[in-house]
């Protein structure tokens, strides 16, 4: 399946048939990966593809269950980060794993400080630190604490450390996630320099533009299996996205007719103009009308979650303005959003949503009580009424309302979380991956619920990776790529193929210039 020419000697790194399971879940299943000398190789995949498991197996954090890993033809099995470093495998993570309280020089030489007469030779350490950083174009005060420098500078220092410890294989795990364009350019220059020195770089990223800018080869994983390895130059974007999402592009999209578009003429409930935040998501325009389901589609890390965090005030936008009912509003935090009648079901319900020890009733009542203020407790009788109503309405499977919510199944927890926000009768409900991690039956129920809610006049903003689902319930889809809103599909335009094409598109689409394919998409933005 490899399109590349066979290397004259053994490749730098050859992984064959790598397998790793956790508690019976196969995280990696017979994966092959080949890294050559002087190559930048993108490792791509969506959630649960197995990228981080592959990296952690390489760096000795995990031990593999099966398969072989050979470095320059020699079989290796590192049992720890230190051993991987000794084998010349260096890793730089998105969260810089250096020490902000130590000086730059100490960070570069921790554990291998130059010594003289049994003591650390601080002068020599400073000199060598400057020498190590010089090829990267960094002339900084190496005695200053690392934490005083930008994340980008810290990344480069981390790379310099890894390379100076004689790395042959350099793993960069989402190094660009918190960098701006200029910083990314500097990082890429560094990467190209290292490539010319024969170092092999494994580059994990969610930004397709960056893949095409700097990578020689691409390996795509999905659900712990190898989808394929290609030369970047020989792989069109559309094919890459299809590989990542695992879709047959010609597959027929089934969609439910949601009726005529009369609601579109109504003034928007909430409107965002040039709304954005540096290092989070590019400024975007977004209108949400009552009774409408707006879906946000895109790959992992494309800016979907960042968008809804801005809309709900969890992150503060640093540009643009928001209006609700035509009045300009300020979103300083989720409290403001709740007061405006917004609700938010987060993606990670274990961490951000449910309170496991509390009962189903208490979980359902939480947001309503918070809005009323804790000084005015909702009477117990009323609490029970509300809880029972939603347990019936959403068909939450629990013996009674007093059962601790952690004892319920994932789907029922998700429904209880939904009930929490529905109890506040929100005007705009934000759902981040509402169907993740729940069984197929509950899946369908949640989708039916979404349709019913929107029929009742509630506006919904949904983030989902399930393109078929989006197509089923949404008449307006905003497509994101590389932290930017790149397209807006409306009415009849909404189809899996169009979404995939927009994700793979190379230049950002001007949203308003999208040609409407059918009448329902012909409304003019106001």
């Amino acid at each position: 399946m490899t399109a590349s020419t066979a290397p004259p000697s053994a490749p730098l790194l050859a992984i064959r048939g790598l397998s790793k399971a956790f508690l019976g879940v196969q995280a990696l299943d017979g994966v092959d990966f080949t890294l050559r000398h002087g190559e930048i190789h993108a490792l791509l995949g969506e959630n649960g593809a197995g990228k981080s498991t592959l990296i952690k197996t390489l760096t000795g954090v995990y031990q593999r269950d099966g398969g072989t890993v050979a470095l320059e033809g020699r079989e290796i099995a590192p049992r720890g980060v230190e051993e991987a470093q000794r084998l010349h495998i260096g890793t730089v993570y998105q969260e810089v794993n250096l020490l902000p309280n130590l000086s730059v020089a100490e960070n570069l030489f921790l554990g291998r400080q130059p010594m003289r007469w049994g003591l650390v030779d601080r002068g020599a350490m400073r000199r060598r630190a400057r020498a190590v950083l010089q090829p990267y174009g960094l002339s900084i005060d190496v005695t200053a604490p690392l934490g005083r420098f930008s994340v980008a500078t810290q990344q480069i220092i981390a790379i310099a450390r890894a390379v100076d410890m004689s790395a042959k294989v350099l793993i960069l795990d989402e190094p660009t996630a918190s960098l701006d364009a200029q910083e990314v350019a500097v990082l890429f220059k560094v990467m190209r320099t290292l490539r010319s020195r024969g170092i092999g770089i494994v580059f994990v990223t969610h930004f397709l533009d960056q893949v095409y800018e700097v990578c020689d080869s691409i390996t795509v994983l999905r659900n712990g299996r190898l989808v394929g390895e290609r030369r970047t130059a020989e792989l069109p974007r559309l094919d890459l996205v299809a590989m990542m999402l695992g879709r047959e592009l010609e597959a027929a999209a089934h969609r439910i007719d949601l009726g005529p578009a009369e609601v579109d003429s109504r003034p928007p409930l909430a409107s965002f103009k040039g709304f954005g935040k540096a290092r989070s998501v590019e400024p975007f325009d977004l209108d949400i009308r009552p009774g409408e389901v707006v879906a946000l589609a895109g790959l992992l890390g494309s800016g979907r979650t960042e968008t809804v965090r801005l809309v709900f005030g969890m992150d503060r936008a640093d540009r643009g303005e928001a209006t609700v009912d035509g009045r300009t509003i300020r979103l300083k935090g989720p409290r403001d959003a709740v007061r405006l009648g917004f609700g938010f079901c987060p993606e990670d319900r274990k961490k951000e949503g449910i309170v496991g020890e509390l009962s189903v009733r208490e979980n359902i009542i939480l947001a309503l009580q918070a809005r009323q203020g804790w000084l005015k407790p909702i009477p117990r009788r009323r609490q029970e009424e509300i809880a029972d109503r939603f347990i019936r309405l959403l068909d939450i499977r629990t013996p009674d309302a007093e059962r601790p919510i952690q004892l319920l199944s994932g789907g029922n927890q998700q429904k209880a979380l939904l009930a929490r926000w529905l109890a506040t009768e929100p005007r705009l409900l934000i759902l981040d991956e509402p169907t993740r991690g729940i069984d197929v039956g509950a899946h369908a129920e949640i989708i039916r619920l979404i349709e019913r809610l929107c029929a009742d006049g509630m506006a919904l903003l949904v983030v989902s990776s399930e393109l078929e689902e989006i197509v089923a319930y949404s008449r307006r889809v905003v497509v994101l790529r590389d932290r930017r809103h790149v397209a807006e599909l409306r009415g009849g335009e909404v189809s899996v193929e169009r979404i995939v094409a927009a994700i793979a598109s190379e230049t950002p689409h001007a949203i308003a210039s999208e040609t409407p394919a059918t009448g329902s998409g012909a409304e003019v933005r106001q």
Partner: protein
Amino acid sequence: MTGALQRFLPLIVTTAVLVVGFLLCAAQFPNFASWRVVGNLLTDNAFLGITAVGMTFVILSGGIDLSVGAVIGFTTVLLAVLIEQGGWHPVPAFAVALIAAGGFGAAMGGVIHVFQMPPFIVTLAGMFIARGLGFVLTTDSVPINHPLYGELNDMALRFDFGLKLSLPALLMLGVVLAAVVLAHWTRFGANLYALGGNRQSAELMGVPVARTTVAVYGLSGLLAGLAGIVFSLYTGAGYSLAATGVELDTITAVVIGGTQLTGGYGYVVGTFVGVLIQGLIQTYITFDGTLSSWWTKIAIGVLLFVFILLQKGLLVVWAGRGGEPAEA
């Protein structure tokens, strides 16, 4: 360089407080500004200073050691029992005491690392155990009358200009100097700061976490043992209730000295100055003669509070700058 100024600011402020405090005292009491007062300040606080150095290392590494006061008490009892009841010569008794105290600390470090237990709990347990062991040996205050004690107490380094440095004062100064070298010119020192900065990162960067954790608590125990020897010289007795609450005094000195309780930032010299500030307040109250000695505690409490607020303020200011590059 403003960077260096920023880093040393807590240390500079602490030192300024000491100097200003000393000048104020000297202005009020004509006899205050004398070498005799300085010498006594160093001697009286020697055991506290030695203990506080060990505490500084532990706190720098992100931990805490609540057992040091109890270890001092236990050491004095152990020495008294060995010398007076066992008929030992003080020198082997000193060696046994140091080994016992250091081993005790290292054992706590081992428990903290192996079972991933909070240092607060482990060393709290250590505090009770050490206190209890002292009581098991004897509940009485046992005077130590060995002639070597008298000789050691008479030993001093006298300077022509009038300063007299007693053996405890010399020991403390030596410990502080050695600690500065250990903190900034050895790999062990760098590893301590690394551990206190971020344990996980330190581990990923190859810092030997187990070895460093055991060593730092062992060092703290060893220095508490040395402080116990100094304390027994100073008081000429062994008593299991000796040095009660000293762990809190040392933590206070460390914090006033500019070391952050969360670890990773701070200087040994700052701790030394923190000890001297506490001693200065104590000396002032002795000079005054009318104030209750509890005013020492009140003054130190207020000072501690002010310093913590100062550190918090500095952190906020730093967080506002560093990290993210300057943006509009």
